[in-house]
């Protein structure tokens, strides 16, 4: 399995009465709740934690893109990834991803991802989400029923920009460019591996299968509830005639907390789990799905309760969340068992470990992360021995990489030319 340590970067100072006094954590969240001075430490701590995960041997460290969002203060994941590229050595930089329909022209994404790949020595794993309706439509103003068409064009353009070796003209509907000629281009050839976050539409399944991209289901509701969706994906992989059913064709995000014992896990992490699940995920339902963003079929099968008049909110308890699989928490052995169950049950090779949760302080996060890296990860490395050599969905760094601080000692006099 491949383990990516993921940080959503939640704002840790939402007030206790946030849910009662605010309409939404996303889109129109109160400006006053963000404190730029406090964010200085928050950002640096969060980046330190991502770097810490690299030192413990995680395969990847992961960042993502959200806008105007109290549980994800990372509108530009590329800025964070650039910082990480300099200060980490081995971990893949999993940027999951850039919402490519939002950028005009999307060549910018091709360029920035190329820069990240070059700076990191070929450690980029790229992600191309369509983006949520909150981000894409309500924050960034894309027309809901044209978003997917624009996304498809952006993907075509980026792929072509990465793989074409001479300048070309691109006459798209949304992008008219006379001279596409990205400079730099990525180290990884023909292009970096791509992961696509999706929410269960057959079109996205097919897109991943046809392009040999990994399909990522990034939910916060855990592996038990994900079974039906992932079964649908694997069924489609078979129907579509993909050459194999490698588990690395899929990724899954899971909240994970490790302690010495199950009891200790509850004692240490319950307040932060509560903060995330009961406070951070408070999104105004009117922003969930702009008309035209989702397909009719999805709506017909979806729940209707959220569109009614707001009712009282039922707080989810530690017991609800751990038993329901939203959260995998406990001793290293408990966590190992449940992740093995997840990996085999969903047939997923790429695990995005959500290990910083809500307002969790750094020391607790480091404790959980270290226990996971030392006592859980090694035992799960070989869950899929038949696919151990499948490198199609992961980065291929160059062997001799430099990192920050590789300058020679400051010269005291004019350098002597080598010749």
């Amino acid at each position: 399995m491949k383990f990516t340590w993921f940080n959503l970067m939640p704002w840790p100072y939402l007030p206790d009465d946030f849910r009662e006094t605010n309409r939404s954590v996303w889109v129109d969240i109160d400006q006053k709740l963000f404190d730029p001075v406090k964010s200085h430490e928050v950002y640096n701590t969060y980046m330190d934690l991502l770097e810490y995960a690299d030192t413990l041997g995680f395969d990847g460290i992961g960042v993502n893109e959200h806008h105007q969002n109290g549980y994800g203060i990372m509108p530009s994941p590329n800025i964070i990834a650039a910082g990480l590229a300099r200060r980490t050595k081995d971990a893949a930089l999993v940027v999951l991803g850039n919402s490519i329909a939002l950028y005009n022209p999307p060549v910018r994404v091709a360029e920035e991802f190329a820069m990240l790949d070059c700076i990191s020595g070929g450690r980029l794993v790229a992600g191309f989400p369509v983006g949520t309706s909150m981000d894409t439509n309500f924050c960034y103003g894309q027309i809901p029923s044209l978003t997917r068409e624009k996304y498809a064009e952006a993907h075509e353009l980026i792929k072509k920009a990465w793989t074409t070796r001479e300048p070309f003209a691109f006459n798209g509907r949304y992008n008219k460019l006379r001279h596409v000629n990205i400079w730099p281009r990525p180290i990884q050839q023909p292009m970096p591996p791509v992961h696509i976050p999706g929410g269960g539409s057959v079109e996205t399944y097919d897109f991943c299968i046809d392009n040999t991209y990994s399909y990522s289901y990034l939910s916060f509701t855990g592996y038990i509830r994900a079974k039906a969706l992932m079964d649908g994906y694997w069924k489609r992989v078979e129907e579509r005639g993909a050459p194999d059913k490698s588990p690395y064709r899929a990724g899954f995000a899971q909240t994970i907390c490790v302690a010495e014992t199950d009891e200790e896990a509850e004692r240490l992490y319950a307040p932060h789990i509560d903060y995330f699940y009961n406070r951070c995920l408070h999104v105004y339902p009117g922003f969930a799905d702009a008309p035209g963003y989702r397909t009719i079929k999805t709506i017909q099968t979806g729940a209707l309760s959220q569109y009614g008049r707001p009712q009282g909110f039922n707080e989810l308890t530690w017991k609800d969340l751990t038993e329901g699989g939203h959260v995998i928490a406990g001793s290293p052995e408990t966590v190992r068992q449940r992740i093995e169950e997840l990996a085999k049950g969903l047939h997923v090779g790429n695990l995005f470990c959500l290990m910083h949760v809500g307002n969790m302080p750094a020391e607790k996060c480091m404790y959980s992360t270290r226990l996971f890296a030392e006592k859980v990860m090694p035992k799960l490395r070989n869950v899929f021995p038949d696919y151990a050599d499948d490198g199609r969905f992961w980065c291929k760094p160059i062997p001799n990489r430099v990192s920050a601080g590789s300058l020679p000692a400051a010269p005291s006099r004019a350098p002597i030319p080598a010749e």
Partner: protein
Amino acid sequence: MELKTVQTHHVPVRYFEGGRGPDLVYLHGAGGVTAEDPFLAALAASHHVVAPLVPGYGDSEECPEIRDMLDFTLHTWDVVAALGLKDPILVGHSMGGMIAAEMAAVQPNDISRLALIAPAGLWDDDHPIADLFSILPFEMPALLFHDAEAGAAIMTSGLSVEDPNFLQTYLVTNARQLGMAGRILFPIPERGLASRLYRIKAKTVIVWGDSDKLIPPTYAHGFKKGIAGSQLVSIPEAGHMVILEKTQAVADAIATLG
């Protein structure tokens, strides 16, 4: 009203037809229109009414090729031509008013009588139009009607706005209809009409409900100022759905076009 189909270049278009008298084309708002619409009936009392559905509305076919304002405008001209109508009275409500105004601006010599009822198409930072696309069903009646309670009953044909049967249909219909409407209304219902209003030559009446909370009545002045010689009819105790709340008053205002 009778539901019929006419073929156009892009897609077969569904339309309601009824009444006798001068030809009148009615363009519906973002909420759509049905055969039972009392406003259509009121217009049909003295006119030959033709009310085409925007593709994706009602049971009509969707049309991926219609993407932007010019596409909507020219497509609707295609519909008028396919129906064999010459210089009909052109009436539009809300989104339909926006399309009607655009049609009259791009082909000013083909329209001599125009009625815009609480039309979309302009934007004023000091009076932002509510975000129709993030409004929850239960919030809709208060936004659309002067009398929210009576409005809710009209919207749901007597069902509760929280009734699952109403919600299921409402959400699927919305995804199709507002999905299409979003191409000219999302995220801001403005596509440059202000710079084209001057081209309109038609005798124009602008109708607005005094308590319109979706597109505030102040927008009427923008249209009146932009269209030379236009008349404004303000209707008291009516909201954005003035066509349902004061049906006859709106029909009377249109009748002044002759």
